[in-house]
């Protein structure tokens, strides 16, 4: 394959050989260049910035501080709170984006054709609504004074609930809005997987005297496990990221930092307090942490799908 092997040949032939050699690279160049320029090189740069102290001003000096940024962040209660909140977001999202849709998918598998298409069309709507619009609408519906939700609570005799300004509630409110966007989508993914299960398997089990619950446990759940794992993977790796828009529009991380997750903390460090070093150091911690979790989940997924065969 090396060029040397064609060296004795004449000019034009050699040219076409070279052409053939570089051609595949030319085709993929635009895409790879984009990823290098906007993702991989910046990733390396973030790593370098995490050892420096800088305030984002072009004229300000950049100072090497070694591991100081990491030490400072790890000593910061805010950092641990954001990490804990990230975990709470994911914990709250899993039931809404995976468990509930799973239950619905299993219960509704045999609804008749026409109504099923209508349900499909309706429950998918939140998925395509712009996140900022979702944030605005829920802000309006959950408004403590004039929102329709508190209107309903008031009509039932309850006190107004401060969904977004109560430090104990705000995180769950944002989790709910994030989950609201995903619920229909997950339901459709799991319904599709559920519908593709071979009916004769279930028929056979039923004739053998298996109960509905046994069929769900021993046939449906194992066969659905690749789809379930895919959703779990998505929620864990992307879930906290999705809530960024809602946090920024609805609470800006408050009250008392109770809705700040790790992604929002990066934003606050970087563009709120202009401490590039801190933001970059947390970015590196986040990236390494999530890479490890992703590797673990992919390993688990490979192992589980092997069991299916």
């Amino acid at each position: 394959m090396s060029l040397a092997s064609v060296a004795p040949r004449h000019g034009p032939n050699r040219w076409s050989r070279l052409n053939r050699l570089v051609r595949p690279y030319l085709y993929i160049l635009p895409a790879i260049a984009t990823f290098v320029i906007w993702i991989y090189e910046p990733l390396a740069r973030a790593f370098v910035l995490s050892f420096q102290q800088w305030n984002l001003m072009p004229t300000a000096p950049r100072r090497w501080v070694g591991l100081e940024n990491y030490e400072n962040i790890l000593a910061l209660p805010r950092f641990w709170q954001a990490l804990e909140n990230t975990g709470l977001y994911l914990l709250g999202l899993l039931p809404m984006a995976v468990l509930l849709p799973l239950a619905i998918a299993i219960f509704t598998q045999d609804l008749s054709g026409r109504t099923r298409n209508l349900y499909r069309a309706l429950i998918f709507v939140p998925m395509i609504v712009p996140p900022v619009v979702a944030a605005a609408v829920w802000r309006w519906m959950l408004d403590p004074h004039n929102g329709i939700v508190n209107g309903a609570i008031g009509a039932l005799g309850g006190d107004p609930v401060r969904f977004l300004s109560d430090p104990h509630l705000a995180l769950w409110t944002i989790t709910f809005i994030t989950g609201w966007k995903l619920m229909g989508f997950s339901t459709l993914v799991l319904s599709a997987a559920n519908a593709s299960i071979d009916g004769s398997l279930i028929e056979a089990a039923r004739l053998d005297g298996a109960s509905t619950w046994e069929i769900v446990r021993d046939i449906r759940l194992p066969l659905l496990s690749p789809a379930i794992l895919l959703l779990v993977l998505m929620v864990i790796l992307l879930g906290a990221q999705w809530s960024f828009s809602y946090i920024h529009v609805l609470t800006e991380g408050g009250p008392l930092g109770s809705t700040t997750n790790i992604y929002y903390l990066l934003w606050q460090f970087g563009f709120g307090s202009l401490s590039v070093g801190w933001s970059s150091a947390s970015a590196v911690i986040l990236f390494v942490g999530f890479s490890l979790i992703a590797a673990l989940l992919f390993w688990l997924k490979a192992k589980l799908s092997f069991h299916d065969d």
Partner: protein
Amino acid sequence: MTDTALQAPARPVAFRLRFGTGWQRPLGHGLMILLSLLSVFPIYWMILTSLRPENEILSTRIWPDAATLDNYAYALSAIPMLRMLVNTFVVSAVVTAIQILTGILAGYGFSRWRFRGASLLMGAVALTWLVPLQVVMIPNYLLVARLGMIDTLGALILPHTASAFAILLLVQAMRSFPSEVYEAARMDGANHAHILWHIVVPNLRGTIASLAILVFISTWNEYFWPLLLTRSAQNSVVQIGLQMFITAEGTQWGPLMAASTLASLPILAIYLVLQRQVIASFMKSGLR
């Protein structure tokens, strides 16, 4: 047991009828109706509020009474809403076109030839989603600043000139393309550009269309990049504009809901017309 296995293929219909009766059926419908209501009521409420006259904005009746376009008029005049909508459309259309172009080229490159480093490069493409935007935001911001492109529409387009999802989807589609067609075209003396644009692309119209829908909607809904890279309303997109109605002094609910409706109108219109394709392309994407 053997009997069952033999009869099975003929039985699913009967089985379905049996499973769908009894207590599970109404419960299933009930669940779906609840979920459907939860899904679309907020959108209904947004549109309803946006059409209410100012003195009825706070009404919690769930049926419309008097309708007015006042809130829309206000939203369009208070901020450069129309300009922002046009900006959003331009950015989304250009990003869609470019991502599909780079996706087609890379898809052809990866699927047509085996070359040194192919799997490594493919891995680099697939792993891009592991890098959250927030992790690379500062270096990207600095790069845009160095290019002198802060507060331009170009800055919103540049980081999106390729997407891993487009490439992976097109590689997959092109790999399943029958290789005899390639060989026949090669025999006829067609070059690669000709094969790609006149044979492969026309045959992948369906895949490319569903990709276009997905990329357009995701770009339209994008919030993080514009938040980072734009400064003035004139050069911004509609998602940023919405926030201008939420102020410290209080929120102007009517205009905010009108602006929100305008910001989701193109997406909802696409969905109304191409509902099946939209759902299918999102399910294929596995999100993003």
